[in-house]
């Protein structure tokens, strides 16, 4: 059985300071971390590998300037990692629509896969589209937002939140359902769903030393140039207004309660 994990990197938010008044984002420390949701997806794949001995292949979520996250995946236990080099067209800025096609072609070139795992959402932009887009590009079923994933006899089973949320007597587990789909399927894993394992120290050093640890494929071989133009473009940034502190609410208790409820409803989801 082959599992493919799609991994991406994100700027560590603790190194960023947003100055609303100046309308600028200051990057004090440019450090990149593996997307937390993708880390959980990798952990889910590795747990399945632990018990079934499946092969785990790591692919990048978007074009990357270096193969650091792929090497991290290898040192944590993935068997293969493929770096997608893009010299073609606009690939360095490709969005999820383009990457879905590229990754679908990459999976075909690998010889197919049984389960594709990726993070349900990205830490910075909170976009969850890559998983479903990839599922559509491959024509596979999708399980979105899984807490736990396992494979059982040609099927993949996942536990995810019921929608709409169920209220049970025990309060906890009743809010979650188990779903299954026939393989092959795409599963997206929520960040914080699983406790990811640490990479093995010696393996980590050896992987970073070995120049050819990560395979290199050229995107031009996978998809033709015309398909590589990104659909979205960035048009700028916007900053929330300076926090207005000390806004006094006055009136009768009922009026205060109404104003407070309006403010809270806006901010508390669900």
């Amino acid at each position, binding site marked *: 059985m082959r599992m493919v994990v799609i991994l991406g990197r994100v700027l560590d938010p603790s190194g960023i300071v947003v100055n609303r008044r100046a309308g600028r984002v200051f990057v004090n420390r440019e450090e990149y971390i593996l997307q937390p949701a993708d880390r959980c997806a990798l952990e889910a794949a590795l747990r399945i590998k632990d018990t079934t001995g499946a092969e785990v292949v790591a692919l990048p979520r978007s074009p990357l300037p270096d193969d650091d996250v792929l090497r991290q995946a290898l040192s944590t236990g993935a068997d293969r990692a493929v770096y997608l080099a893009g010299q073609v067209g606009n690939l360095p800025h490709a969005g999820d629509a383009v990457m879905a096609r590229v990754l679908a072609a990459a999976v075909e070139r690998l010889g197919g896969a049984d389960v594709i795992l990726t993070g349900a959402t990205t830490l910075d932009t909170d976009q969850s589209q890559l998983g479903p887009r990839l599922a559509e590009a491959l024509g596979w079923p999708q399980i979105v937002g899984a807490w736990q994933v396992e494979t059982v006899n040609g099927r993949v089973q996942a536990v995810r939140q019921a929608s709409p949320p169920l209220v049970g007597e025990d309060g906890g587990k009743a809010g979650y359902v188990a779903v299954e789909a026939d393989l092959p399927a795409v599963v997206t894993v929520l960040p914080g769903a699983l406790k990811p394992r640490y990479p093995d120290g010696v393996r980590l050093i050896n992987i970073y030393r070995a120049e050819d640890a990560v395979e290199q494929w050229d995107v031009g071989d996978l998809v033709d140039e015309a398909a590589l133009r990104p659909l979205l473009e960035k048009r700028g940034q916007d900053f929330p207004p300076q926090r207005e502190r000390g806004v006094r609410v006055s009136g009768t208790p009922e009026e205060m309660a109404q104003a407070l409820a309006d403010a809270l409803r806006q*901010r508390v989801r669900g």
Partner: protein
Amino acid sequence: MDASYLDLLMAQQEQADKQHPAPEEEVAEGGGGGIWVVADVVDGAVAPVTLEALSAARTLADSLGAYVYGVLLGGGVTDLAQTLYQAGADGVRVASLTADHPSPAQADKQHPFALEPYLKVLSDLFEAEQPEVIIFGATRQGQELAPRLAQRMGGGLIEHVTAVSLDEATRTVQASFPIYGGEYFEIAACPEARPQFLTVEPGAFPAPFIDSYRKGEPTMLEIEPVEPAVRVVGTAEDADKQHPADKQHPADKQHPFEPPPVPLAQAPVIVAAGRQAGDFDLVKQLAAALGGRVAGDRGARDAGWIGPEQIVDVRGVMVAPQVYVAVGIRGDTFHNAAIEDAKFIVAIHPDPDAPIFQVADLCLEAEPKEVLPALLEVLEE
């Protein structure tokens, strides 16, 4: 004119409408474009996020000179079409279902969300209609349907949109979405590919003007039954007992699924009590109503209301929630430093000079005992 004359006019209008029903909206040849909103249905009613999406759609449509259309998916949702008309839709389509294919809203209770039939219906509909913009709510339905539909139709998708503006020259929507949970916003646009897909964040857009006299006749669509690819096999508990012989994960058999606990430091909503909170039960009820966790300052600990692991203080737990409600907390430096990363702080305290008011976003100078009961009542509505 007095009210009774107005009533008379309205009654006459209704009579006229009954005799001459409003014509069905015209659909231009080759697809009418327009701004389409795919509605979310929750508990048998149109979800607030859909109404907000309609208000955003209305704004865009007015600038573009286009129509706003709504789509309802599910069984037994035909009557809800009127809600969409009242909120500003010019046309509504209803994808009618049988019991075999429940709506996304009824999903998971008995059957899984039937992705495939909805995808087919929507993609057939949109192939024919050629919308300019398609808006979903940023809900489970939006998360599953919008990207697949966008990929199928070759459109660009921007998720969790909190504000929109229009680039009129190219008829492109410029959408803002939050970065790192709202630290700042990025603006993206899909300049060429059509349709443009958006999922809107609940609570980001204003509620639309509801014109209760507006009505319409929705168009029913046919759904081809397609076997869902993702099946519900039971609750999480059942999953542990499922197929014991098939189970290839002995580790999971010993450790059945437990939803991961969220430590107080990471809780998104916290209601904290202080010495002046009065009735601690009200604080607990407020936390339950908001879906948040209970905490407190050292005074609450002294009063025996909370345990030591719930003390919000630099010497206790540092918290960074989306919403922090300080009920009766005076707010000394050590408490205030522990909440400095909270996104929105509300303080309720009787003393106008309480230091908490210097860090709170919303300040209520009142007795918690008076405000909380009224607040709980309003929240229940």
